[in-house]
Structure formats: structure tokens, C-alpha cells
């Protein structure tokens, strides 16, 4: 029963992501699973030149997306370099403030998180527009109207608060007598900071940097105002979605998901390795201390079936089924795409012909049934249309 709940939960969580990922491989112009056109990587590559001449960009050929990613990366780096030190400094100040001031200071520090991002974005633009207006032409005017610069500032406003909270959590467990001990041993305040506090905070610095970057990368509602004429990844995607979604976005999503999973798995593997190394050193230490041979006995772990096996099996079954269906119906490869395109093109031509045949003649257009001096009763080409009309009672 528990298993079913968990399955439903994860299906709810990951279902949309899985569906979206599959649509990235369908060659159709709109992201869909059914009807399945062809299995293809075109949305990861150059996309498609449509039969009407329109270019539907794929992931590799979409320069707007590339520009967006680059400015997102620049902004992310900027936000990390600003908000991590700001958050750390604010958290350190909190450890020094005693009395009632502490609560007030804490409340003010976390306030930016509570503001709507839209307001932070707009107010940054308004402020810097005024500042840019002060200096006439020149550096200040340039920087005050630079979307990337403004976005870094606007995002830093609230992202530094998340960093602050991470540092506060870590500092709460800091033993301040360590600082005193270092001072007592002759260290200057600067040395205490770099030799005691920073090494202690380094895990928090790392996680604050990662979180700041992720928050910055995915932010939309502040960025959309402060970015001005530039584009970030999120604003590019948003403007694309406004024009209709393309499977290229599914391809992008899948790429991001894949990168995330790779990063998470790498981190976990490294962490487990480090843990194992630590456990081994501990074991060695214990063995050195204990002469008792019983500890030195090796226990061999039996093979265990991992608990997630059903979920993995389920995915494998579905994937195999899908793959065999695709192969059986020959729904893959260039030939399939060519065939599909040809079919669509012929349909398109057919429709064009139908339209042409139905096209009104010049005479009809100029003098014709739609204009002229005819009675309005004849407007639909049928004089007897309103004859039996009895009114709206």
C-alpha cells in the first residue's frame, strides 16, 4: 500500500517531466506523444525548415536561446560573487549583535524574501534610471541602463537573503571560544577570520554559492523587468512560449534535467567515497587501539536487491515497448521524416489548391456580392433568409 502511495507521489512529481522529455524526440512541430510522427534528434540539432519556408529552430541553432543562456550564466556568476559575501557578512554581524536589536536586525535582513520579485525588479529599474539620468552621457548612464548589471543587482537583493539564512544556520553551531582561542594564541582578527571562520564556513559558502546560482538562473519575475532590452534564458523561453511551444524547449528541458541528474549523481558518488575513506580511517584507528581480534574480522555483506527495482523495471518495460513499437512501424530515421514532410507538404498543397479554387474573382471582389448597393437582406446571398424571421421575442 505504501508502495502505491509512493508511486503515485512520484508519478505526480515526475510524470510531466517524463512526458515532456519524450516529446523532445518526436519530429512533429508541436510537442506531442500521440500522434507519433518520427523518432528524431532534430530538436536537439538544427531544427527544421518548414515546407512554408519558416525556420523552426532546434536547440543547437537557436541563437536567441544561446544568448539567453550566456547572459544567464554571466548574471548567475555576478549574483554569486555579490550575494555570498553579503550574506556571510550579514550573518556574522548577527552573531555579534545582542539584545533586542538582534530581532529587529534579523527581521530586516530577511525582509527581501517576503517582497514580491516584481517589485524588486521594477524598483531597481526605477532607481537606476534616475541615477543614470543624473550623470548625462557616460559610464553611469551606460551602467544604469545595462540590463545585465541591473538584473545582477536586483537578484542579489533577495538571493543574498537566502545566503544569509544558510550562513546563520551554520554559524549557530559555531563554537565562539575557537575565535577566542585563536586570538589568545596571538592571531590577529584578520587571521582569525581566514584561518578559523572561513574554513568552518566553507561548506556553507559552497552551498550558498550553488543555491544563489540556481535561484539566479531560474528567476523570472524580477528578471523580466530588470533585464530591459537583454534576454536571459528564462525570458527567452517565456517569449517563445507566448508564440507557441516548440519541441526545442522540450529538448532544452531534457538537457537541463540530464545535467542536474549528472551533477547530483557525481556529488553523491564523491560524497560516498569520502565517507568511505573517513570510515576506513576511523576503522583503522579503532583497530590500532583495540588489540581485540574480534573487531578485525571481516563481515561480508550479502547481495541485496535494491528497493527501487520495481520503478526501474517499470521504466525499462515502457521504454522497451515504446522502442519496439517505433521500430516495428518504422517510425524513425531520415526516411520517416522525409515521408512525413512529403505528406504534410502534399496536404499543404492540396489545401492551397482548395483555397485557390474557392478564391473570389475580381468581379466578385469589386462589385460583388459583399459590397455594392444591394439590400442588406441579400447579404448572405440568399434574399429569402430573413423572410420568416419573427424577431427576438
Amino acid at each position: 500500500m505504501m508502495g502505491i502511495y509512493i508511486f503515485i507521489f512520484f508519478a505526480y512529481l515526475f510524470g510531466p517531466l517524463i512526458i515532456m522529455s519524450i516529446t523532445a524526440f518526436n519530429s512533429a512541430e508541436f510537442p506531442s506523444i500521440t500522434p507519433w510522427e518520427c523518432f528524431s534528434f532534430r530538436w536537439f540539432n538544427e531544427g527544421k525548415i518548414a515546407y512554408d519556408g519558416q525556420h523552426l529552430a532546434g536547440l543547437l541553432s537557436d541563437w536567441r536561446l544561446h544568448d539567453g543562456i550566456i547572459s544567464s550564466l554571466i548574471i548567475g556568476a555576478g549574483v554569486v560573487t555579490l550575494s555570498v559575501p553579503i550574506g556571510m557578512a550579514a550573518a556574522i554581524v548577527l552573531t555579534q549583535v545582542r539584545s533586542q536589536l538582534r530581532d529587529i536586525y534579523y527581521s530586516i535582513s530577511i525582509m527581501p524574501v517576503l517582497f514580491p520579485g516584481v517589485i524588486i525588479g521594477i524598483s531597481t529599474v526605477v532607481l537606476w534610471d534616475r541615477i543614470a539620468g543624473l550623470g548625462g552621457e557616460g559610464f553611469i548612464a551606460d551602467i544604469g541602463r545595462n540590463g545585465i548589471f541591473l538584473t545582477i543587482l536586483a537578484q542579489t537583493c533577495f538571493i543574498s537573503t537566502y545566503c544569509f539564512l544558510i550562513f546563520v544556520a551554520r554559524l549557530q553551531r559555531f563554537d565562539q571560544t575557537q575565535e577566542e582561542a585563536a586570538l589568545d594564541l596571538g592571531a590577529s582578527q584578520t587571521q582569525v577570520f581566514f584561518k578559523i571562520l572561513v574554513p568552518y564556513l566553507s561548506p556553507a559558502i559552497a552551498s550558498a554559492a550553488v543555491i544563489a546560482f540556481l535561484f539566479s538562473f531560474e528567476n523570472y519575475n524580477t528578471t523580466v523587468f530588470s533585464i530591459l532590452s537583454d534576454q536571459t534564458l528564462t525570458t527567452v523561453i517565456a517569449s517563445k512560449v507566448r508564440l507557441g511551444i516548440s519541441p526545442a524547449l522540450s529538448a532544452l528541458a531534457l538537457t537541463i534535467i540530464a545535467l542536474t541528474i549528472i551533477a547530483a549523481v557525481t556529488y553523491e558518488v564523491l560524497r560516498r567515497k569520502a565517507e568511505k575513506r573517513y570510515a576506513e580511517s576511523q576503522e583503522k584507528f579503532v583497530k590500532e587501539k583495540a588489540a581485540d581480534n574480534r573487531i578485525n574480522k571481516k563481515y561480508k555483506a550479502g547481495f541485496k536487491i535494491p528497493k527501487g527495482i520495481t520503478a526501474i523495471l517499470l521504466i525499462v518495460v515502457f521504454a522497451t515497448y515504446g522502442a519496439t513499437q517505433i521500430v516495428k512501424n518504422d517510425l524513425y530515421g531520415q526516411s520517416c521524416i522525409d515521408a512525413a514532410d512529403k505528406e504534410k507538404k502534399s496536404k499543404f498543397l492540396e489545401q492551397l489548391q482548395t483555397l485557390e479554387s474557392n478564391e473570389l474573382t475580381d468581379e466578385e471582389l469589386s462589385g460583388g456580392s459583399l459590397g455594392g448597393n444591394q439590400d442588406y437582406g441579400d447579404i448572405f446571398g440568399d434574399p429569402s433568409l430573413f423572410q420568416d424571421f419573427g424577431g427576438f421575442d
Partner: protein
Amino acid sequence: MSADVELSDVSVTFGSFYAAKNVNVKVNGGEFFSFLGPSGCGKTTLLRAISGFQEPSEGKVLIDNKDMSGIGPNKRPTALIFQNLALFPLMSVSENIAFSLEVRGVSKEERKKRADELLELIALEGQGDKKVHQLSGGQKQRVAIARALAVEPKVLLLDEPLSALDLKLRQRMRTELREIQKRVNITFIYITHDQGEALTMSDRIAVMNEGELEQIGKCDEVYNNPLTPFVATFVGENNPLYGKVTGIEGDKARIETADGQYLATMNESKKLNIGDESIAFVRPESLFIPRDGDNFDNKIDVNIESFEFEGNLKNFYASLKSGAKIKFSVPNAIDTSSITSGSSIVLGFESSKSVILPKASLAID
């Protein structure tokens, strides 16, 4: 190299609260000196004033006859061993020990050499690469001492460093501390609430209560001739006998209590007059069960209430006629099978083993 430490009229206030009040004490160079007192008596505040973490509100701290006011903890020739040791968990043992050299810009080889020397001093050779958490409690203790000694301070300050250890280890560390002090020959100032620690290790002790010094002296002097009722009851155990002075006989005074008259020795600096409210003190180990031929100055009738076996001693709790309680101890070697709960016996004690002091508050257990 050791240095004198002098506290001259030192007061430390937090708001209107006096953590230390007009403390005057001079610790001689090379001495093992202890501040003894209950928690909250201001002894840690004094230590922080000496080490520079706390500026005195009034008075001066002099180290080597130099006024230390305005000089930060990192510029004083003192090293402090914290109650929780405050070892740096992210550094190895050697790095911990050589930290004070590192911040002074000493080269890596020098640091290693000095760390190895100190590891040898604390009998932890070859363990410098271990992390701090891999050490046992006593080893950590010794690393903290080595770290403090690395720059050869003139004064070593110790803030109850043994309080977290178990009894056996604590006893061994006492001896070790004393040995290290003799070897390095610097001034040790030790803070503790454990009178056993203070008495076994120190050359001299200062007993503190509520921010003020009650008595300074050699260990046996403080134990045998307490200056105040607080010292009498805080250092070791003591039975108080309340009453009024009825007669003076040389350096002794006679006290009239609800349970009878006793003769006790007066302190030279606390002379009493007839009629003064006073307390006579007698220690549990100075109360004896008289055998035939024994003739004690004082006799006291008691009613045994309960009994407690401590190992080397047997403790008896008894009540007097007036209801006052009294405790006495008998070495385990003595047969006490005849003394049972409810039995009435007579105890005796010598006037030379009893002190009489003007009435004042006792140390609360």
C-alpha cells in the same frame, strides 16, 4: 621564563552587577596558583581579565610589572586553556599545536620541529597527523596544553580544564599538570570549583565568593585556618556549631550553644569578644569516638541517624539534642559494628582542631 601577575583593585561590572569586586592578589612567577570558588563567583571573569578578553571596569592587571590595560589578548604573554579546550576541529593535532607559530609567520619546518618537541613533552609522539576527534579526552587535554605552550607564554591560564574528564583521568591529569608545570617552570593560574583539584595541585589558593576574595594562602593554611565561615565550609567539609562567646582563654574561645559548651581556636586576625555571635567549626574527620583513656577538650552527645559507606571512610550522620545535624567520618579499618541507627553515643574533639569565627553565611552545598 615566568612572570608575576598582579591584580590591583580589579573590579568588573556588568551593568550594576559586580562580577569581581576590588580584587587584590599577587601571583609570583613560577607559582601554581588556584582560584577556587563556586560557579558564578567571578573566577572566570578574573581569568578573562588577565588574558585580555575582559577589560576591568576599575583597577589594573599587571603582568611582569607592566600595565596590561588596552593590550589585546593576542598581544599578552599569556595563554589560556579553555574549559571546553576549544581545539580547532578542522586542523590536525600538529596544526593545532603549531597554530600560534603559524600566525606569527614561522616557517613550516620550524613549526613541524616545535610541534614534534611538544608532542614528545605530552607523550603523544607520532600522533601529530591525527584529527582532533580521533583523540581521547585526556589526549585532547594534553594537546590543548601543548598548543598553549607552543609560543612559550610567561603565564598559563587554565579555566577548569579537567571538569569534563572522568574521575580516574582527572586524578592522573592533576599529577601530569603539576609535572608539566615543574618542567616548563612558568606561572600557572588555575580556576576550579573543585577544592580537591585546587588543594592537590596548587602552591597557593585564593578562595572567592560573590566576586570577592575571601582568603589567600597555602593549601593547608586555608584548610586548617579558614578565615571566614564561607571558606570553612567551602574548602572541605565542616560541621557548624552556632552559639555565643562566653569566655576567652588565650588564643581560644569558649562558645555556648544550645547543646553545650565547646572550646575552639580563634583565628589571629578574627579576634572575638564575650557575647559575640559566632560559629565553631569541626571537621568530620576530627570527631572521634572516645576509647578508654582518651580525654578530649570537648564532648558532644549525638544520636546516630544514618550511615554511608564511601570506601576508605565510613560517614555517619547524626543529630544533636537541639536538632542540629552533624557528620563524622571513621576510617574503614575501624570496627563500628556497635554503632547502629538510633543509638546514642558521645563524640570528642580537640579544641586545636576546631576553629571559631564570627557569624556569617556559609557556603551553600
